């Protein structure tokens, strides 16, 4: 690595961090909190707590974000702009909750069914968006997004009406019985969902790097004309990739239900913006797969740290969203061209 490269990298890093620090300081001042106290609260909220309770909740959130990020990565690298992860996540979570609450049978079997149902629901919803593009010419970018809304409304109706937990009166399913929860790591309150995500992430990266299917999907993303000319089954490839992406989103929904919340309640997967955070985590690292977990952890820490800031320094937690968006904006100029399928508007400068 030559000195010029290092200097350029440092200058870029400064170009991102200096404006962001200024923005953060401005927002904290606007909320009327002393900056020192706010930063302290942020760090404690993200990494501290009694017996590292907050660090564990950061890890738990990071798992869900990384899962959604890998789901987005799977489709983005294949040139498929599936931004319907939210709908796929919601339907997955709902399916898992319905099975885990209502299906009879031994706990491990029911949990396996719940996960499978969630993955199937997510995969179907993603493939529906793909089918709309292939058969009806609805651009995936728009079709997948529009399908988010009916999915959320449907889930909201299911837990508001037929499967509502009447005892609590809230729009949520009944609590899943104790035996069907994902176990925690011994001695902690962190469920093993994050480990599942870690394994799945490694598997997905291995799929992309080593399998023929993964290579073909990527080539299809980089150059659809080449993929077609090489005789790849491009339509099937696209649908299969979308199914994988949707299934992964569904799995994340199942893990959130079985591990974290133990039920599905209205809005619980939409409000924290897991799907969108996953998408921006992938965009932040320009689809470099091994960096996705780092970006996911970073954004998770940002969110839980901001929640900590809200608790003790009364800075609204949405500061995390603002900073997250600002990071993407500042980095966008550098990462843009590495996203396949991103629209080329034919105008440089």
């Amino acid at each position, binding site marked *: 690595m030559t000195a010029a490269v290092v200097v350029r990298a440092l200058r870029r890093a400064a170009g991102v961090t200096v404006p962001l620090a200024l923005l953060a300081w401005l*927002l904290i001042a*606007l*909320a*009327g909190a002393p900056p020192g106290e706010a930063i302290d609260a942020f760090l404690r909220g993200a990494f501290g707590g009694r017996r590292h309770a907050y660090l564990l909740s950061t890890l738990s959130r990071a798992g869900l974000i990384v899962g959604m990020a890998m789901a987005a990565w799977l489709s983005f690298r294949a040139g498929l*702009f599936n*931004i319907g992860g939210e709908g796929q996540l919601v339907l997955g979570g709902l399916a898992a909750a319905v099975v885990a609450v209502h299906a009879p049978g031994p706990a491990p079997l029911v949990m396996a069914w719940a996960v499978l149902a969630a993955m199937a629901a997510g995969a179907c919803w993603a493939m529906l968006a793909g089918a*709309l593009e292939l058969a*009806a*010419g*609805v*651009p995936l*970018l*728009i*079709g997948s*997004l*529009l*399908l988010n*809304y*009916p999915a959320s*409304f*449907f889930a*909201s*109706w299911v837990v*508001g*009406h037929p499967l509502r937990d009447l005892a609590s009166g809230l729009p949520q399913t009944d609590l899943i019985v104790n035996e069907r929860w994902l176990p925690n790591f011994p001695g902690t309150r962190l469920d093993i969902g994050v480990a599942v995500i870690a394994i799945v992430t490694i598997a997905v990266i291995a799929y992309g790097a080593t399998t023929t299917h993964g290579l073909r999907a990527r080539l299809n993303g980089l150059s659809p004309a080449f993929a077609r000319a090489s005789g790849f089954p491009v339509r099937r490839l696209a649908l299969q990739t979308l199914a994988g992406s949707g299934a992964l989103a569904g799995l994340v929904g199942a893990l959130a239900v079985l591990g974290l919340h133990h039920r599905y309640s209205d809005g619980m997967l939409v409000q924290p*913006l897991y799907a*969108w955070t996953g*998408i*921006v985590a992938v*965009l932040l690292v320009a689809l470099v797969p091994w960096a996705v977990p780092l970006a996911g952890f970073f954004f998770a820490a940002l969110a839980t740290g901001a929640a900590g800031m809200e608790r003790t320094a009364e*800075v*609204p937690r*949405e*500061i*995390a*969203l*603002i900073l*997250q*968006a*600002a990071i*993407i*904006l*500042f980095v*966008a*100029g550098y*990462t*843009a*061209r590495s*996203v396949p399928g*991103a*629209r080329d*508007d*034919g*105008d*440089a*400068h």
Partner: protein
Amino acid sequence: MLLDPAFLGSVPRFVVPVLLAALGGALCERAGVFNIALEGFVLVGAFAAVAGSWWAQSAGVGVLFACLGGMGMGLLFAEFSVRRGGDAIVVSVALNLLAIGLTTFLLRALFGVSGAFRDPRITGLGTVDLPLLDAVPLVGPPLAALLSGQSPLLWVALALTLLLPFALARHRYGLRLRAAGEAPQALRTGGVSVRRLRTAALLGCGALCGLAGAQLSISNVNLFVENMSAGRGWIAVVAVLLTRGRPLPLFGVAVLFGTADSLSVRIQGLGLPQQATDALPYLATLAALIVASVWRRRHAAAGA
């Protein structure tokens, strides 16, 4: 039921936000900017309208703030996408998130509330009444139900819909705007800055989306709710894509979507669950996309 005055009167309230935002999107589309951040633009506009109206106790200031807020978003888009060359989709995703974060943050930091902000200081936009229209025989009463007592922004939107085709076809800036979209090289050869034109288009788009937001927050109601744009900006994006930014077809599509939206409120009375009717505008939008593409394919096949 469709000619019921209450229903007719509700249609423009749903059409205007989509139409205004879509007109803004059309400016971008024609200038060659792929802007799918309309949702965020509208949300910021809605918040700024309430903030301005609350601060000055004047709806006019609210509208002004809404325009400025939207233009601020447009400026951000221009800086990060047009000038720094960030991918338009990435920048759009970021700006949509920024809009949610910023409006909710400011709602808490400035007004100390979360969820919804209502206050007697928020002054709503008045209405434009057309008292004489009712006297016209036959067509008068339904037209009056449709057009009388609506927000002034309806008339702004209609005027712009009529004006924009002329501007695009005849005016020098309209021609340049289209050139920026269709043949940027030629424009540059002619000594005109493509970047500056696209920035202007984004500013115009921001102002129009701001107006759309003002219609939502200080005309349809008199309050701000978190995430109150609720997908309207995305529907406007679809309208732009469907019509490739041509104003008159755009008007038709906006009316279609707006009617579906108000219809969805209307049929809640029939005992359908609210979530089913809430999903209707999005399903109608998808259906319109499918129909348009099938229709286009037929025509392409017939032409070949």
